[in-house]
């Protein structure tokens, strides 16, 4: 067989279990695809050169036996270089693995490589990566989004079977939307942050980026659960995949007017309205909502996240990790400075404390909305993938791109982005937001939407753009 890399997770698991093909063949096909496309896409920072060896000895009783998985480069992987796409950590080989990585390995998965991202997860484009930007498989002149851009690109380009990203505000959902794949951002605390290079600690949420909703759900069920090594990890059992729904009858789904800002791309707006219509056909009642203007979330998010970043990055002093602070890129420096300023004595009350208070108001606003509706939908991003270079000189690029995901992030809510259309050959994403711990609902709505549409089945034509990437090639590091 060939092109095994194009399989979904569910198909690949089935193929290995029923011995239609071996794990080695599966990994091998993914590696072939990586070899072919990396010069163009630059989805990976580091490849695991042991992946093929690992695929030779697999335990069939494990749920992800022999499945090649691409993991964002801010997850610590023992003995495998972890850089968070920053040159500052270009020589950092962790002595321990992140909880999520441990869980995946325990489940039998093979880490095929570490995916490119915005450096330190600072951005929504991968353009801040010190290893060059990743490219959107649908059109390499465009960005994959970010910060988990590499992970999303691997899914669209079939460079792996499934992937892991992390989201502080939009970093799973936005690149998934731009790459036409499924991104599931769990409730804050549902998945342990242990071993994830910290960005905005009070919001960081690891989660899957996959080719289908089922695949994403399966991964969440395997990486969730209480981790005693993360004090903010919820004291809950691993999340269980819910029974599929056959109809959305009885469900009220909110459509906030404010999630259609003036500058929204008209095709995006139309796709979301079409999606709402589709959900209505499936039995849901669509209710227009008046929610708090998401612009407040940008302000709050910017203050809180920068403050946490300024403290989290303080440890890279130049004494350890081999490189000094001059190795921080411009975006990291900007964030450190803004956060330092916001936390300074005399400004703390005006910025950090005020932001925390507004965060409480945002949480309350969602609570109010969820008394009226079961779920909220909207565009994941107001645009489709922007061209390479779009983030240059725009310090607030990420925040403007993530305007529609930041409110739910601040409230710690789960969300999922599923493909819901195309404009000029670039994918559009529909996001579904539910109350805390109600991933079952967002997954079920997404699943039913997916099975009644074919957007997720469309694949980019990866042979039509042979031009070489400007980004550096990934290096294999043991």
């Amino acid at each position: 067989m060939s092109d095994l890399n194009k399989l979904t997770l569910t198909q690949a698991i089935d193929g290995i279990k029923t011995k239609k093909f071996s794990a080695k063949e599966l990994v091998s096909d993914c590696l072939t695809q990586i070899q072919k496309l990396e010069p163009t896409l630059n989805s990976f920072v580091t490849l695991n050169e042991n992946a093929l060896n690992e695929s030779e000895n697999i335990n069939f009783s494990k749920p992800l036996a022999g499945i090649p998985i691409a993991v964002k480069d801010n997850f610590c992987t023992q003995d495998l270089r972890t850089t968070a796409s920053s040159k500052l950590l270009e020589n950092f080989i962790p002595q321990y693995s992140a909880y999520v990585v441990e869980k995946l390995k325990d489940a039998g998965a093979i880490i095929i490589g570490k995916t490119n991202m915005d450096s330190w997860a600072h951005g929504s484009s991968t353009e801040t990566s010190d290893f060059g930007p990743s490219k959107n498989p649908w059109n390499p002149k465009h960005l994959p989004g970010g910060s988990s851009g590499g992970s999303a690109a691997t899914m669209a380009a079939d460079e792996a079977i499934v992937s892991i990203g992390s989201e502080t505000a939009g970093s799973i959902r936005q690149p998934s939307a731009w790459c036409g794949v499924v991104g599931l951002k769990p409730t804050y605390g549902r998945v342990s942050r242990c071993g994830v290079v910290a960005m905005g600690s009070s919001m960081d949420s690891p989660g899957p980026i996959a080719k289908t909703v089922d695949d994403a759900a399966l991964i969440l069920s395997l990486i969730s659960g209480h981790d005693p090594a993360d004090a903010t990890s919820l004291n809950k059992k691993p999340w269980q995949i819910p029974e599929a729904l056959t109809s959305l009858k009885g469900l009220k789904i909110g459509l906030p007017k404010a999630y259609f800002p003036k500058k929204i791309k008209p095709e995006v707006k139309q796709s979301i309205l079409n999606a709402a219509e589709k959900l209505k056909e499936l039995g849901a009642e669509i209710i227009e909502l008046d929610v708090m203007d998401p612009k407040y979330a940008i302000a709050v998010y910017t203050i809180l996240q920068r403050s946490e970043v300024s403290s989290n990055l303080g440890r890279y002093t130049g004494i350890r990790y081999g490189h000094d602070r001059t190795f921080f890129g411009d975006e990291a420096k900007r964030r450190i400075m803004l956060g330092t300023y916001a936390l300074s004595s005399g400004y703390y009350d005006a910025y950090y404390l005020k932001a925390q208070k507004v965060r409480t108001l945002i949480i309350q606003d969602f609570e109010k909305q969820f008394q009226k509706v079961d779920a909220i939908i909207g565009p994941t991003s107001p645009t489709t993938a922007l061209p390479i270079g779009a983030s240059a000189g725009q310090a607030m690029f990420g925040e403007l791109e993530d305007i529609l995901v930041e409110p739910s992030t601040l409230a710690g809510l789960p969300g999922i982005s599923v493909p819901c259309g195309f404009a000029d050959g670039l994918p559009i994403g529909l996001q579904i937001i539910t109350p805390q711990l109600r991933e079952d609902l967002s997954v079920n709505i997404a699943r039913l939407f997916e099975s009644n549409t074919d957007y997720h089945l469309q694949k980019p034509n990866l042979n039509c753009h042979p031009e070489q990437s400007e980004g550096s090639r990934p290096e294999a590091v043991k």
Partner: protein
Amino acid sequence: MKITPIIGLEVHVELKTDSKMFCGCNAEHFHAKPNTHTCPVCLGMPGALPVPNKKACQWCVKLGLALGCTVNEYSFFERKNYFYPDLSKSYQITQYQKPFTVNGKITVQGQEIRINRAHMEEDTGKSVHMVINGEESTLLDFNRSGVPLVEIVSEPDIVLSIQAKEYLLKIQQLIRYLGISNADIEKGSMRCEPTVNLKIEDNGKTFYTPLSEIKNVASLTGVQNAIDFEIERQTQAFKETKEVKNSKNKTTRGWDADKARTFLQREKEGSADYRYFPEPDIPPIEFTPAEIEEIRMTLPEMSEQKIEKYQTIYGLSDYDAKLLAEDQNFAAAYEALFDTEFVSKDQDTLKVFAKFAANLFLGSIKTYLNETQENIDSSKIVAKYFWDLFNSVQNKELSSSVAKQVTTESYKTGKHPVEIAKEMGLIQVSDSNQIEKIAKEVVVANPKAVQDYQKNPMSIGFLIGQLMRASGGSANPQVAKEILEKLLKNPTL
């Protein structure tokens, strides 16, 4: 010119929990091989997260309660951001706006010293400076990084250096009573930083000199000396410069114990900006009133309570009571003497025994422990021995001084003290027939002394001495004196 020192103390105490504050590493770091008690969390590796040590938090609350503090039912950790090579994360996890406990007070030599707070934090690593291959180098040891630390901050209620020392002794005693730390200043498990300035009243005007915080003081005497030095230095400085305190001239001074002086370490530009903010990695901590009460129930009987008990029930002097209660284990060993079947039911006898035993504890055992630098071993204190010894003295078989002597020996060897006295021939003879026999011999042998006695009854001492010698020291001197007097007054006997 009237000068009043204003002294506040910050005390850091390392808790002796098994594991560190935010990870599972061994918290014991004294003399451990560098960087062997470390993990990604206390090394501050990327992605590592702190998980608070429940026992340490409870112990901090316990200490706060013992200091008379109020426990905040809702509290949280914060990050104190600053750069130092041995601070692994470039921030220290500590408490700022909402510490575990606040507003306490303790009484030191009759004066109340208010406690601002007792809060929970983590210790830093250590920088070790040494010359390697001819080059001055700094090495980092993270064994101490993340060891649980309680910081006790006093209000500036102290006015004398001796008071500061007494305050520290009191805190040290209290911590040792709670059994939560060795509070050893020399080994660094208790560290003190006095902040000193002066209130100067001159010609109806009041001035306050700039604050100095004194660091690296490694002994109680050092604290006292450093404060005295600083009072003198600030007095002179004020006379010369007239500089008064403002928000920008607080300085940090080091203490040089060899030269017995403080020296300028750091001039602060206003208060350092640590950019405190709530630690996002640790959810807020709540103690319910029931939980606080539960911790309060674990407080042992403290020294004040013991001192009062010793005075009222045992009839001891204030002085003896304080000495006995100084060390909890020592006091416990003493109290065990009353928790036995041999204890007298008679209140008066009990008090006599209490005083007798206190003398032995303070006179013999404590002296011995001080000489050998040992802690009391309560297994060597046998209640029966003390009661037997007491009865022997009451029966005049033993003198009090012999009792002291054999108590030390008994503590060392575990032998019964009365047996020791017998073996050493130290049993007193109070049997008047036996003594009378010897007395008669002494009278016959010393006619000159007998004549002297007739002229001067005060000279009986010589004859008593002769009698004691003849008895091998075992005669009860009181009985001997009585018999001799009887014989001498009536030579026909």
